[in-house]
């Protein structure tokens, strides 16, 4: 019984002593810029405290064991982050004015993630090598290529990471979460650009990074190409500057770049309203996007071909004119 009482009193004093020590030790916090550290970033660590005057404290900064900065009021230090997944240990000893030392250890572990975006309903002709740009009210998909590298040197599986999406500073928790590596939204015509941000982290939160992208929007564009029966559409050379009709007839295709269509490859899926005029007269065409022009024997001069496209959304409309000389 006596032994139990002694043990009890011992632990009480131990507990109280610890609490007293904690009560005397000032609280020191820190901020790190940038928030998401990428490889080779310039990282700035700033100390802060509401319970002690750090401007009077003597501080020693060590990076990977080597002293890099010391002195009174040295509350800030900058360093270059190492390569992907290569950790830097920063130890800070703060000797406050009341003589109680505070130790802080910070790990800088650079990670990265690339945020990609695409307009998934923006029309471009098959085999077009350039990016399909988004017109206003296009459907946008943003996705991530993450590079989260742990201490063992292995990359985390993108499907087993946690993604938190934000659009124009507003978080979307319902569209975020485990494995949610892409985010889809439709641009509203009021927004001339969209800002999308994603935070990516491992499930235990030990590795984390962030990325953002500003997405601009564009006017759709109509480009004319010549189409031959055998060679098909000659996408190598646009004819918007005019066409000289050297043969009896030729076909012109009007390509509505960046209009939203139901199917990415199909301009003829009914989403777009297409119409042709020759010298201001409406003319029918064998296909909505293609018209065949013929010259009458002995005729010479020129005609103006107009092609109008109306897309499914308010801002998606446009027209183009082509001068055909014969």
């Amino acid at each position: 019984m006596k032994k139990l009482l002694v043990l009890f009193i011992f632990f009480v004093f131990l507990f109280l002593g610890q609490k007293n020590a904690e009560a005397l030790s000032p609280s020191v916090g820190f901020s790190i810029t940038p928030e998401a550290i990428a490889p080779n970033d310039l990282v700035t660590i700033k100390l802060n405290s509401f319970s002690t005057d750090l401007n009077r404290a003597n501080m020693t900064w060590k990076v990977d064991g080597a002293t890099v900065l010391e002195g009174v009021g040295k509350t800030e230090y900058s360093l270059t982050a190492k390569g992907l997944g290569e950790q830097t240990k920063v130890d800070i000893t703060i000797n406050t004015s009341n003589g109680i030392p505070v130790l802080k250890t910070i790990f800088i572990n650079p990670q990265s993630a690339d945020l990609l975006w695409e307009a998934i309903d923006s029309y471009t002709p098959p085999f077009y090598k350039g990016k399909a740009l988004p017109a206003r009210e296009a459907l946008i998909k943003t996705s991530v290529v993450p590079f989260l590298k742990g201490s063992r040197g292995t990359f985390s599986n993108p499907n087993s990471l946690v993604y938190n999406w934000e659009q124009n500073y507003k978080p979307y928790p319902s569209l975020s979460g485990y494995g949610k590596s892409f985010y889809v939204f439709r641009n509203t015509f009021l927004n001339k650009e969209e800002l999308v941000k994603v935070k990516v982290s491992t499930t235990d939160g030990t590795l984390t990074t962030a990325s953002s992208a500003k997405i601009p929007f564009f006017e759709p564009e109509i480009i004319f190409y010549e189409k031959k029966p055998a060679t098909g559409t000659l996408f190598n050379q646009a004819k918007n500057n005019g066409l000289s009709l050297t043969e009896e007839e030729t076909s012109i295709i009007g390509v509505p770049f960046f209009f939203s269509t139901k199917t990415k490859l199909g301009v003829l899926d009914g989403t777009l309203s297409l119409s042709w005029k020759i010298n201001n007269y409406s003319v029918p065409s064998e296909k909505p996007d293609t018209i065949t022009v013929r010259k009458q024997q002995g005729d010479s001069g020129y005609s103006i071909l107009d092609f109008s496209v109306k897309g499914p959304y308010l801002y998606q409309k446009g027209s183009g004119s082509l001068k055909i000389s014969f």
Partner: protein
Amino acid sequence: MRNKKLFYFAIGFLLFAIIFAFAFQFLKNKNGGGSTTGLINSVFENIFPFKTIVDEKGNNLTEDLKVGQLEEGPEIETRPTLLKITPLPVSGATLFDATREKIVYQETASGSVPVTEKFIGRFIRYAEKSSGHIYEVPFDGFVKSKITGTTIPGTEEVLFDNTANYAIFRYYDDTVGRIKSFSGQIPTSSTEIGRVSGEYLDDDILSISFSPKDAKIIFSKEEGVYTNIFTSDFNGKNKKQTFSSPFSEWLLDWPNENNFTITTKPSSYFAGFVYQIDAKTNAIEKISGNVSGVTYKEGSDQNKGLLGSAGKDSLVLYLLNKETGGATNLSIGTLPEKCTFSSNSLVYCFVPNFLPSAVYPDDWYKGKVLFSDSLWAINLDSRAANKIVDISELAGEAIDGINLSLSDDNEDLIFINKKDLSLWLYDL
């Protein structure tokens, strides 16, 4: 008096003609930002078109026959420096060396005896855009012959493997709204017209590239919300997934047997990325990122690549050292796809003589602008760049060179002129 009037009139007319010529050429060059010296030279070339053209080695290209077009009929005895193989649009071409057999007659005691002899010859194979028929042109005589009669009209692109024994024909079938890819083996006989035996790959393949070594391919296609990248045999068999991403706008390349590269489709308005995928482990690594209008090309040297950055009125070419990540501006304004790597630290590039005002590379891909190129050689070790020849001037027409294919010994170069998709051969 009358003679004096005539004399003054003649002087005045001559002055007017010269001023008009300058003004015309100035307006022609306006968007290209050409130099004053270039302007003067251009004017005098237009007035006096018979100036001597010399190449980098000082060879007089105008004295000897240096430009020609391959015609149907007899063999060419003297091959010009620049030869138009066909004026008709082609959808793909390749240059290769192959061992062939020929019959030679040996004199024996009993008379001439036919003997089969092997020889290594150089050949061009190309696919005609209108029909998909493949033609072969041997360097021995340059008599072209049709070797396949399999008709696939309107092919948008035809890819050949490094042996030219396999080809993939790609076109858009607008009756069903699908991209079609037909992969086949080209008959080995070049003495009779054969057919391409093969089969269709998956529909709607977005990007595809042959392996540099075997008859294998890498290709991408959308499957649901993901775009998956696969390798397979040339006929689509033994398909294996190598990468998957929710992002679909990838351009694929297989520059060496160890790595694939995937590049985001470029635009002046998009800061894109280039990644490398290890062919064995499928591990992905970033080569470069956040580059406006990014395009990329790599040779067999896995440590170096050409990185292009583009924007409004701007094309910049960098040499990328993949080991250090360092990028050297080569002070040349062109795109990596207008270049080809040689086997001896040289890269050959078609470089626009001037850059029309446009948004790059978007407007070039749309065909809204075309270039008039010179051919340059860049030494990857010293980074020195030298103009070999103004190919457009030599050809007598604007050449916007694409789809370069270089012989193994770096002596011959074929390319397609984007302007009219004609096929050309240049003697390096």
